[in-house]
Structures are given as structure tokens and as C-alpha cells.
């Protein structure tokens, strides 16, 4: 390994830097890849899912001059020329590492359908269930060194917003952790190893009796495979990535004492362990009433968690190998409804994307802060389709995005129908 000495010195240097407050708590993990830093490291994806659909005007695309803006002001960020809503002051400090797309478009204005589309870059189709981007990565970029699930969804949220394997199979569904930092109970073996061994030998006998005449069907159920995966996971040192017990109080506070904050911290730890794709969900953006107050509440959770995540990845030299995407199923109407809320708006909404060697500090597309007199949308400039966004991520992560996969009924489907966004790859 020609680079190993360099990697070690980097690691050592990092440890010195971090010794004052936070140290490297993860145990040494087998495989050099995990020790690597910078762009040599295999790339991971963290998706921050804004469940319910965050309002672009109250987050990444403020229009303080507009009558529809409510009390939102725009603040400068560390990215030249980029202003975001004043509700995200900590993120303003981190924006030089990231880019903003303000012109995402979708045709799906329902939560479930919209989530399906943004998760998979395909519109819902009753004849096939498409896999989510995270599940495609897990399928296309397997890593035998990872003993814990390679596609993880953190925090509560509806099932339709969690990554699913679709036609790739349920084994590519995200591993769901509903309450990050609290859910290790089920991942730990409840008995000593001699009893565990006895249980497994018992299970072998009982399964054999049942398999008689049902071999192919039991195999298809993945029951035994799941037990084996669970066992190797329970034994794995990598499980520590899900633990927060040894994190400094200061670190926990920095991310925020919220489920989402803990989720983002665990997402960082999973990236450090080498897990391929992680989604952290923050629900509650569906502000049909009292939109402003709703977004004040939500951004108080989002801002510290997201900013700490970016800062930590930068400090640990992990941002070059981690793509962060902050996105939801759609945005919200520019106009305020009679209840002081904003309704669903797939006609021009925002996402934040960066890391993993993608261009930083770019602002793509723009929207107006209004609708036409009859409430019709005014199309954004430089509209970006979700498939193009995903083609960008897949191409950066080395997945041949245009290739065809064969669904169980023999129908070939492209991994992704889009083409990469040049401004982000540049």
C-alpha cells in the first residue's frame, strides 16, 4: 500500500488536533479504505431528508424584498454571492463547502408520490417499484468489509420516505433506526456466547425440520440469510458507530439535543466506519398553517445539526469523500394561504448539495417569489430535473448511471435516466 504511511500520519495529525475536545472514538476498523482520507477514500452519501417539504423561501432561497416573504431576511454566507434565510445562521458559515440548486422541478405534489419521485428519480408506476438512490448505491457499490447495514435510515418517519430496494429486493431496503442513539438494545446480543451458540445450533435443527420440502421457498424468504447477517452485525466492532455514549457532551450539544441532531452525529460516525449511504430524516415541514413559526421550529433543529455535520466532516478531512444532499419531496408555495401557511409546491424548489469532490459555492437556477395572478407557477430559470441530480451523484461515485438493470419480470430499466449537471462536476 503506497499511501498507507501518509494515511497514518494524517490520522495521527488529526488525533493531535482533536485531542483537546473530541477524539477518535471509533476503534480501528479493518481495511485500509476506512483509514484513508481526502479524495482517495471511497465516497459515501448522506441525505438529509426534509420530510413534508421545506419551504425554499424560508431556507435556501429567500426573497426578502417580496410581500410573500413574511419575516424572512436574507443573510450573507461564506459562499461568495450566496444568501440564505436568516433562520440558518450556522449554515451560513458552512456554505463555502456546498452548492445550492434553486430550480428543482417535479410533477408530483402529493407527499407519498413526491417522496417516491425524489427518492428514486422515477414517477410512481403501478407495475414496478423503483429502487431509491441509496439502495442503488448499496447494490452497485457493495463493500464486504462492512458488517453492519450499508444503507441506513435514521429517525422516525413514514415508510414511504425511507429508502427502499424496490425491484432490487428487500435486502436493499434501508436499515431503519427510529431513535438514533437509543436503539442499540436490539442490536446487542442478549445472552453470553455459549448460550448464543446453543441457540444457533437449536435454530439450525428447527429450521431444517421446516425446510423439508420447502427449501427453495425458505431460501427465498431470506430468513436464514437475515439471521446470519444479524449475527455478524451483532458481533461487529463497527456497531459502535451507532453508539453515542462516549461522545462528549459538548459534541452532542453542538449537533443539538434532538433526534435529528443525534441522527446527524451518528451519520458522521457511520461515514467514518465506511457505510455507503445514510439518510437522516427531519419531519415536520408540512406547514399548511403558520408556515413561519413552523420553519422557525424546524430550522432550530436543522441548522446546528447540519452545520456541525459539515464542520466535522471538513475537520476530519472526510468531506472530499462524502456527498451531502439536503432535500425533501417538494417545496412550498411562494404565496401565503389564509391560514398563514404555504402549500405543496413542486414547481421550483431547493436542495443543498456538496462534498465528495463536487463543485462548491455554486448557485444553480433561480425562482421568483410569486405566482401568476391566477396562482399558476412561474417556471424557475435553469430548471433541474431530479434524474439529472442523481446522475450527477452516481457519476461522481463511479456508478455507471445509464446502464440497465433487469427487473424481476425481465424488464430492463436504466439506473437513472438523467445526465450529470456540468456545473456541479466542474
Amino acid at each position, binding site marked *: 500500500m503506497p499511501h498507507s504511511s501518509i494515511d497514518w500520519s494524517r490520522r495521527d495529525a488529526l488525533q493531535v488536533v482533536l485531542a483537546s475536545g473530541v477524539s477518535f472514538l471509533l476503534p480501528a476498523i479493518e481495511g485500509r479504505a476506512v483509514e484513508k482520507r481526502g479524495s482517495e477514500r471511497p465516497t459515501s452519501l448522506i441525505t438529509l431528508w426534509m420530510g413534508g417539504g421545506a419551504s425554499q423561501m424560508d431556507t435556501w432561497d429567500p426573497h426578502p424584498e417580496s410581500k410573500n416573504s413574511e419575516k424572512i431576511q436574507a443573510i450573507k454566507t461564506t459562499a461568495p454571492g450566496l444568501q440564505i434565510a436568516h433562520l440558518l445562521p450556522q449554515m451560513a458559515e458552512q456554505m463555502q463547502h456546498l452548492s445550492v440548486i434553486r430550480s428543482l422541478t417535479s410533477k408530483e405534489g402529493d407527499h407519498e408520490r413526491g417522496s417516491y419521485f425524489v427518492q428514486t428519480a422515477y414517477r410512481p408506476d403501478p407495475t414496478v417499484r423503483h429502487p431509491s438512490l441509496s439502495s442503488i448505491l448499496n447494490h452497485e457499490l457493495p463493500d464486504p468489509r462492512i458488517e453492519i447495514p450499508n444503507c441506513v435510515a435514521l429517525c422516525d418517519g413514514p415508510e414511504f420516505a425511507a429508502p427502499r430496494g424496490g425491484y432490487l429486493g428487500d435486502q436493499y431496503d434501508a436499515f431503519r433506526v427510529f431513535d438514533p442513539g437509543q436503539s442499540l438494545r436490539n442490536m446487542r446480543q442478549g445472552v453470553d456466547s455459549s448460550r448464543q451458540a446453543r441457540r444457533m445450533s437449536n435454530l439450525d435443527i428447527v429450521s431444517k425440520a421446516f425446510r423439508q420440502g420447502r427449501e427453495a421457498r425458505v431460501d427465498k*424468504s431470506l430468513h436464514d440469510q437475515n439471521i446470519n*447477517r444479524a449475527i455478524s452485525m451483532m458481533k461487529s466492532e463497527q456497531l459502535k458507530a451507532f453508539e453515542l455514549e462516549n461522545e462528549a457532551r459538548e459534541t452532542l450539544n453542538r449537533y443539538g439535543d434532538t433526534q435529528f441532531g443525534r441522527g446527524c452525529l451518528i451519520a458522521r460516525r457511520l461515514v467514518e466506519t465506511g457505510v455507503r449511504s445514510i439518510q437522516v430524516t427531519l419531519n415536520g415541514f408540512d406547514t399548511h398553517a403558520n408556515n413561519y413559526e413552523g420553519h422557525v421550529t424546524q430550522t432550530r433543529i436543522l441548522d446546528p445539526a447540519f452545520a456541525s455535520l459539515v464542520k466535522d466532516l471538513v475537520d476530519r478531512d472526510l468531506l472530499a469523500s462524502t456527498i451531502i444532499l439536503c432535500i425533501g419531496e417538494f417545496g412550498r408555495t411562494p404565496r401565503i394561504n389564509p391560514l398563514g401557511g404555504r402549500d405543496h409546491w413542486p414547481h421550483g424548489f431547493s436542495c443543498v448539495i456538496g462534498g465528495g469532490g463536487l463543485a462548491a459555492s455554486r448557485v444553480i437556477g433561480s425562482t421568483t417569489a410569486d405566482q401568476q395572478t391566477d396562482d399558476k407557477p412561474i417556471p424557475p430559470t435553469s430548471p433541474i430535473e431530479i434524474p439529472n441530480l442523481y446522475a450527477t451523484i452516481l457519476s461522481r461515485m463511479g456508478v455507471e448511471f445509464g446502464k440497465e438493470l433487469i427487473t424481476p419480470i425481465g424488464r430492463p430499466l436504466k439506473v437513472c435516466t438523467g445526465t450529470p449537471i456540468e456545473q456541479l462536476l466542474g
Partner: protein
Amino acid sequence: MRWKPILPAILVVAGVAVLTSMAATSPVRDLTPPGRHGPAESDVLVVAAEVDQRLLSSLKTTSLSPAERADDLTILRRLTLALMGTIPSLEEIRRFESDDRPDRLAIWTNAILDDPRFHNYFAERLARAFVGVEGGQFIIFRRDRFTNWLSEQLRDSVPYDRMVRSMLAEDGVWTDRAAVNYVTAGVANEEFDANKLAGRTVRAFLGQRIDCAQCHNHPFAHWKQSEFEGLAACFGQLDYTMVGVVDRPGKKFEVEDRETLEKRQVTPQVPFHPEWCGTRGSPRDRLAEWVTHPENRRFERASVNRIWGLIFGQPFLTERSVDDLPDPDDPTFQEQTAVLDLLGADFRTHRYQLKRLIRVITSTEAFRRSSGHAVHEPAQLSELESQWAIFPLCRLRPEQVIGAMLQSNSVKTIDQNSHLFTRAIRFFRENDYVKQYGDPGEAELDQRTATITQTLLNMNGEFAREMSEVGPFSTPGTIRQFSPSRAVLLDNVYLTCLTRRPTEAERAHFAPQLGSPPKQPDQQVLEDIFWTLYNSPEFTWNH
């Protein structure tokens, strides 16, 4: 209407009321000793035989033979899981085994259909199709009242078409006229979502998906956007006041044109056979008549397909979702859907009696076949599966897993006579467990494998640990204390968890662990055997 100032108070009162009523109505009374229940009526058996004949004739084109008959205990397990969401208790198994009447399965099925556990469990399963699993709009949607109402309809054998008409057309308050919760489930942001109601009505009662016709003409079927809008308009006059759900005859239903984005007024319309609507009542009354009209074959097919799915764990057309049936006149599917039509006609002529339909389906050989077969070749296996010549292997629903675990932890039947504490535990534990397990929601009949999350929950979860604990009142404890020999002890453990006795290989494996008298069997050994059985594929997969 302004709820907000009194919201906290209502919340507390409603919460207490809901919890008390749920704890009080959860599992129920003992399976009545089947003495007063008779065997299946002969005409039920005739229809069941026709179904089997039909299925076998399709299989005859291949050289395959159907799977053998499963043993009666396996079939009893299927029945209790499908109809009551739990497995037979040891005391029920003992009674069943001592019942030597040749048609004991039919007699026991009839007893189950009279058991409140069936009414409650099946009501919950049906409610998923009718109102989903979401909490819905606060106050005006009362899911608990709705499922109680469904449960009463099942208890009183109310014809299914009448139930559906009540759901579609009833007026009144959500607590008193609980059927109206079908439409109040469609309230979002304090307004009725007529599109949602139209889509759900067609999916739940006619077994077809027209939701995408909301935005464009259906790409595969005949549904047009205008037809969807006409159906949605049937719900367009809905409103709610302090006296509950009403229709406001003057209210206009407008849709936004997706192309021009202009508002258009739409009048209530059905896509075909408007003469089925009748002439009287509100648009919802006429829609209800149309949906349940005896000539509307979609209605009976959809009902049969769903009930078949709830009984087998898979809808009759295994390759399609339960609410995605082909059009009845589509010539390419006539062969495949013949059984649906056969059962549908019987359902219709017997006044849409769900219990009769269940009796017919559970009397078929298809329901009583083994889930094992000598054939292993995937293509042959899938041929057998598609003709129902082998019983499907389906993952149990989370409620069924937890119901089975709880029942296996008690020698006696857990029912309405059980201690309130036991029932409260069941209620709270069930919710907690289902959340961790993942609720498949309305898509519960879609076939999915287990996930690592679920595997870990059963392997290491608190609940599985507690259920296998040897306590003075738990099954592990009772069985340890009262089994006269080690062989009987192992029999009892197996019967309690898997509704069968151990094989010779299993006996040979466990005998050394259990030791021999006078020493008591080791507590941890016993707990580990329970753990093993809970984590076996046989426990969590319906077979």
C-alpha cells in the same frame, strides 16, 4: 370551526377514552366449545369444490400434481392466524385434538366466525383498506370508532354491500354514526379531499387504481381523467358541521386543469352504467348504489380478492396488488379471473355475507394444502403457486407475530376474559412492537421478505426476551412445572409455539439439554428453546 383553545382538554379526555375502550375491547372470549356450531352447509362445499376443480383444471395442462393436504393442526393454525391474528392456545389445541368429528375444521371455523376475536381482528384488517393506518384529521376522524363499527357489522353479519353503502353515503357525527369516518378520513387541512376519496373508493371497493387519472388518462386501463373527476365530484358536496357530515346541495366542485391551470366546475358522474345509480338522494347515495349494484362485477371481484388475500396472505391474482385487478371484460384475463367470478357470484347470491365467503374459501382444498412440495425448480414452483396448488409462504403481519408470541406465553386462551392487565399489555406492547417492526400500512398484502431490523427485534428485543422468560404464570414456567415427563414438556413447548409436535431429529437434539428427572429442567435451557422457536422461519411465516 375553531378547536384550538379547547384542544388540550379534549386531547386528554379523548386519549383516556380511547385507551380505555381499546384495552377493554382488545382480545376477547374463549373459542366457544364448538358443540353448538354445526358443520359447513352442503352448498358451501359445492362452491368450494367448484373452485378447486377450476384451479386444478388449469394445472392439468402441466405435468405437476398439487401439494398434499396439510395436517389439521397446521390448518387450524392458519385459520386462527388469518381470522383472529393469533395462534391456537395449548388448551384450544387439546380441545381440538379431542374433537373427533370428521368435519371438525368446518365446525371450528364456524366457531371462530362467532368469536369476538374474529370481529375485532378482521375489522382492523378491513379498516386498513378503507381508511388506511394514519391518524387523520384530529377530532373529526375517529379510527377507533370506525373499527368498532366494522367489528359490530361483522358480529351482526350485516351484508357487505350494506356496510359499503353506509360508509359511502352516511351522514352524521363521527362518534355516533361511525361509518362516516370513511369520508372524514379523507379530510386534510380542514377540507374534504374529494380526489383522495374517489381514488380510495375505487381501490377499496372496486379493486382498481384510478388515482393517476387524477392528473392524466390512465396509461394502462380505460380510466380517463374526466371519469376520475366525475367520481371525485360525487364527494364534492361534503361538508362538516357540529352536527357531523352533511352534503351541501349547492356546493360546487371545481378542479384545476393541469394543462391550462384554470378552474373548471365538474358535476358528479360515474364512468359507466349511470343507470346503476338510482335516482334518489345525494351524489354520495347514488355513488353508493352504483358501487354496490349487483351488476357491477368489479365490486364482487374486488371483495373476493381482498378476502382471499386476508385469508391466504396473498390476493388471488398473486402477481398483482390487491387493488389492481384487470377490467372484468378484459379478454386476456378471463381464464385467470374465473375463480374470482365464481366466488363473486356466490357472494352476490348469498346477499354479500362475508362469513359465508370466508367459509367457502377456507373449505377449499387450496386452503388446506401443504406449503411443502417435492418440486424445487423455480418455474414449476411458481406454476404451482399461481394455481394455488401449494399453500403460499407469507411473512406474518407484525400484529400476528406479537399475537402469536403473547398467546404462546400463556397456556390459556388470551381473550376478553383475560385479566385487564394482560390485555393492556397486549395493547401497548403491540403498538410499540409494530412501530419497531415497521407497519406495512395499506400495502400489507404486497409480498415482502423480512428485514434485518425485524430479525434483530425478534432475536434481541425486550419483548421476545420477556415472552421466553420462565415465570410462575408464563407458559415456560407452567410447562416446566406441570409436564409429567421431558417428552411431554417438549411436546407442550412445540404445540404452544409451532402448533405441532417435534420431529424425531428435534427430540434427539433437545433431550440432552433438558436432562432427566428428578432434576428440574434448566431455566435457561427452556428459555433458549422458546427463543429458538420464536426465531424460526416456521414461527414468523404463515405456512
